[in-house]
């Protein structure tokens, strides 16, 4: 008689969301107000347990924000989203992307949704890995992170 352990390719899953995870959420973590001088702001942190010595970590995130500029012709407002393995600055930058929204008008402000996807390959054996999602605005008048915020990490067996 033999015993066989059969594992899924999906080994672990970690996630973080606002509660409720909606536009203009009442979660105390939002709104996060951004200007050109507010620097890098923390959006979410998740820690994923790891089973395998080598693994692919599938990271995804969704962030809802509003451009508060009252002038439609205002230059596009840009934001850089970053995912750090570990903490910002001391960790390793594994992903970044830049997205823009343009100003609003008398009808109201512009709302946008940004979605991120990345695969991080872990080659060094460790029991868990922490990822930090941040945002930094530049060349803007005013942007508010209003929700939703979703951040997920899935360990996939290589």
């Amino acid at each position, binding site marked *: *008689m033999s*015993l066989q352990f059969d594992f899924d390719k*999906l080994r672990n*899953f970690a996630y973080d969301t606002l509660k409720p995870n909606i536009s203009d959420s009442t979660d105390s973590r939002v709104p996060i107000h951004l200007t050109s001088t507010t620097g890098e702001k923390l959006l979410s942190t998740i820690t994923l347990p790891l089973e395998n010595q080598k693994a692919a970590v599938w990271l995804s995130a969704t962030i809802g924000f509003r451009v508060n500029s009252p002038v439609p012709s205002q230059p596009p407002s840009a934001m850089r989203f970053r995912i750090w393995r570990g903490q910002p600055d001391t960790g390793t930058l594994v992903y970044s992307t830049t997205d823009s929204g343009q100003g609003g008008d008398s*009808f*109201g402000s512009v709302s946008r*949704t940004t979605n991120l996807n990345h695969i991080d390959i872990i080659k060094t054996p460790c029991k868990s890995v922490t990822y930090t999602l941040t945002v930094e605005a530049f060349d803007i008048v005013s942007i508010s992170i209003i929700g*939703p915020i979703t951040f*997920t990490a899935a360990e996939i067996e290589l």
Partner: protein
Amino acid sequence: MFNTFIIQFDKLIHFVFDKLNPNISNSTDPRVPIVLAPDSGPKLLSAIEVPIEKKESIVWLSATIGTFVEDSINPSRLIFTILRGNPNTGNIVFSTADSGQGGPTYRTSTFTHVDQIKNYPSSKVTYYLTVQAVDNSENINIIGPISFNGAEIKK
């Protein structure tokens, strides 16, 4: 002859999805275009039924929608909502807003959410994806693609 006992550790329990056929911009699927006229209410984009096996589980939801804003000097806001149980009266588990500006503007909106379910009174749960246009002076068309999927993951 050997007997083999297989012990399975499944993390991904179910995966369901819905998409247009073909799932492309300006798809010929009869479900599109969906025309969102000014001051119109929420419209159903997709529904998926996820079997629930455990008393406590998490459902990883994601969606992608392609839109076309005919003409909009003003920002035209689209509010996407995921409801659990009923497309009108169900619990709102997720919502987000995306805008198109200028005319014409093509926009692709993608988003994810994780819904945590405890002691759900049924062996399956249906998620409804809806969209409503706000502040649009002209029509906004949902032209494809539309992708909506749900993965039940064991806690």
